[in-house]
């Protein structure tokens, strides 16, 4: 659509078109109460992710909760001073929980988007061009499949100072394979569809065909796997942090769990365990529930009957 008589109008229409498709596709939320609950949780999580650190009453690391006598409140159950209790060295669990949402959010968001985008691109190119491009890319995914994620990630993180962005990178580098495969097989079938042949017959270049005709039709799958990618990334980040390979300068939910586990206080300090544990569980489950509902929309074969 390079030359347009009224570009703005056209643009507006396009935007509306996209919005409509999205609206169409998201109507499932109204039907599926589970997915709706998931959306609420995700929204809350996004809110925490953006504003969590600002909402935290105290600095999660530097501030120490003290009793009236001024001595450190260690492993205190939830009280007025610390509504979620305190850690072994008197840190406010609530503040840690709030601040910990941010790295979780960042890794989830960017890990998910990176995974989805990279996988989508690889799947698209691989499926569309076929031949040796496909062969090479698919062998590459086979390779990432055969290298075990956790050990490889641990190895890398042993030598490089872990940071949230590095983790995101590693996660993307290992997880893109999932969407890539699915997108590719989807592309393979779309590629055979008549309208793609028809586009080529009307003289569209490969790039144009791929971007305008094939890509939009596999986009839902791409979205779906981006959503799953978010959940995977959050889970992966939490897992690595739990194993002690997370960014030590940042409080994340995974790291909080690591600290309770390591401190040997898991048996007593339930207030310290539950917020991060439930936080992670809730967000990953929600993302999956939404993804599943969305999957039913784009794959009518398995749609729930009313």
């Amino acid at each position, binding site marked *: 659509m390079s030359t347009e008589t009224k570009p703005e109008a056209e643009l507006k229409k396009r935007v509306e078109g996209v919005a409509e498709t999205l609206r169409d596709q998201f109507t499932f939320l109204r039907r599926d109460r589970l997915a709706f609950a998931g959306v609420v949780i995700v929204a809350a999580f996004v809110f925490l992710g953006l504003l969590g650190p600002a909402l935290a009453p105290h600095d999660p*690391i*530097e501030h120490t909760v003290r009793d009236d006598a001024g*001595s*450190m409140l*260690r*492993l205190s159950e939830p009280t007025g001073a610390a509504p979620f209790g305190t850690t*072994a*060295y008197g840190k406010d669990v609530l503040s840690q929980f709030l601040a910990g949402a941010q790295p979780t959010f960042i890794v989830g968001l960017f890990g998910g988007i990176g995974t989805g985008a990279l996988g989508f691109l690889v799947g698209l190119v691989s499926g569309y061009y076929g031949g040796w491009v496909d062969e090479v890319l698919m062998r590459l995914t086979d390779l990432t499949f055969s290298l075990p994620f956790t050990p490889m990630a641990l190895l890398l*993180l*042993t*030598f490089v*100072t*872990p940071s949230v962005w590095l983790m995101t990178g590693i996660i993307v580098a290992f997880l893109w394979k999932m969407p890539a495969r699915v997108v590719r097989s989807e592309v393979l079938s779309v590629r055979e569809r008549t309208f793609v042949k028809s586009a080529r017959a009307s003289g569209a270049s490969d790039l144009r065909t791929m971007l305008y005709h094939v890509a939009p039709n596999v986009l839902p799958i791409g979205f779906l796997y981006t959503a799953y990618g978010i959940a995977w990334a959050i889970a992966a980040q939490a897992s690595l942090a739990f194993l*002690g*390979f997370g960014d*030590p*300068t940042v409080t994340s939910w995974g790291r909080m769990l690591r600290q309770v*586990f*390591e*401190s*040997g*206080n*898991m*048996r*007593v300090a339930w207030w310290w365990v539950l917020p991060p544990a439930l936080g992670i569980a809730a967000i990953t489950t929600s993302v999956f529930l939404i993804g599943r509902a969305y999957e039913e929309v784009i794959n009518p074969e398995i749609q729930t009957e009313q």
Partner: protein
Amino acid sequence: TGGGGNGSGGSDGGSSLTPDVPSGTPETVETKYWREWETIDADEPPLDYSATAGAVLDPVPLEFSSEDDPWMREHALMVQRGLDALGIETQLNDRPLNQLYAQSWDTKGLEAIISMSTHGPDPQRGLDPNPLLMRRTETSLSNYDNYYHPDLQEVLTEQSRATDRTEREELVAEAQRIFSEDVGALITLFPDIITAVNTERWSGYVQTPGNGPTKDSFVWSEVNLQPQTDDRAYIKGVTTSMNSLNLPWAAGGAEAKRLTFIYDGLFDATPDLEVVPALATGGGFVDDTTVELTLREGVEWHDGEPFTAEDVKFTVELYKEHSSTSQTPFYEPVESVEVLGDHEVRFNLKGPDAAFMTQRVVRSVIIPKHKWEDVENPSQHNPESPVGTGPFTYENWEQGTRFEVSKNEDHWMFDDDWRADVLGDQATTGEGVERVIWINVGNIDSMIGSLQGGEIDAIGTTLSNSQADRAASTAGVEKMTSGNFAPLDTKLMFSCPLVRDKEFRVALAKSVDTEGFATDVLQDRATVPSGENPISDLTPWHTSDTTHYEFDIDGAKSNLERAGYTWDDDGNLRFPNGDAWAAFVERIQPGNMHQRRDELGQADFS
């Protein structure tokens, strides 16, 4: 993550002064290696931090690993508060422990201005001052912080060759005085060893410094314990597991300590850190480089073979030839070993070595020649069933889960009188343990549970104070605390111009509230040394006659003020400017960095 950029400061917070530099003085002083250190790559400084006249200080990187000790982050925060009080911004670098160590492997030096870690309570560190002091010398591989003090260098070199005890003690005391006065590092505290044990089933736990009653560096508790029930198997819960049964080539894991229960050294050390005979019963320096020892007679290997001087000679030669990893301190200074008789050996040393009798031969490990002589590749050998002469005989080992030894009845340590001599008040009498079993309980939570549930008798690792209290809340379980001779060493990187200013170092020492920290966070379960003295008062080498810079923020500030430092309106510390800058530059010159303002005849700039 190397620290602040160039000294222009100002940009992030704080307003710098316009540099006003007397002629002949550089406006900016860069991080620099002032001496040729074998261990440091001067072309590629790991840290880049420069000082500029009148500039607000860049944030000072503070490095630590929260894996090191659970409270290490709190400790870093304490140091941070100190710097904060002086108006210095800081940047906390929490590093994975292995990376903190990796800096030393790469021998590029520390990457942060301030870097803290605890020293392991290796028994030899309690016996001899060398392990902790010699790293402050020029050629030590462990000198990562580029510290060099000509006087200290001289004193330390001299003491390391002084085989005369009194002479050496004097020199060591002098070294402590110099180091403390110079603030060569911040030696903030010696954390206590806290653990919990079952006192209903066993009595006779022996408290050893740095080891407590239950850790594996010493064997006193195990040989002294007396059962209060019929069960004579003493079960110790641990969190780390042995990697192999090859003690001499252990890479310093749990096996390096636990397997010493099976072996004997030439000498041993008492809970008061005094050297007592073991396989060697006597002897000493014949001259500066020759040591002759008499060996205990009538000792048998666990398989019944007699122990002779041949074994000692063989051991040392094998270690040397195949570079034993865990026994380096023992064989390193030895040139050769001669067998003088069945129970007499002579060590020829490469040079005079003061620590040989006090440190190196103590808790060394002698292995049986008849078992090892046919081993092709000792470093990759994993004996089926290690044979030693020690107080305990190997029974069985399951990697990752348990290690079990049984009492060697004939061993002299089970002689009640002998023990009474060595252990003094702590000695008990009775039939003693039959077996010692280490069980890997993996995590502290389960360990406390197991101790309370009676599945284990003692916890073989350190607990935090509150964990120990929690464990001790059960009847029959008691918390045990002992002192420690391994300090928390907060290293200062001497390549950095700021650190090289002794006025700053003194101010820093004054700004850190170690006492408060020990009370508040560690609940007094730590010893705060007087002055920056790495030698603990638990050891006979300690001197209390050291300079102690009291916690005193105002004092610290006025020190800085007099040295020409100023503060901007927001309270950010600035480097000196004008003449004071020239004085600063003078103070940090190689020859001057151990001298204070007045020693150099500098004016008071306040």
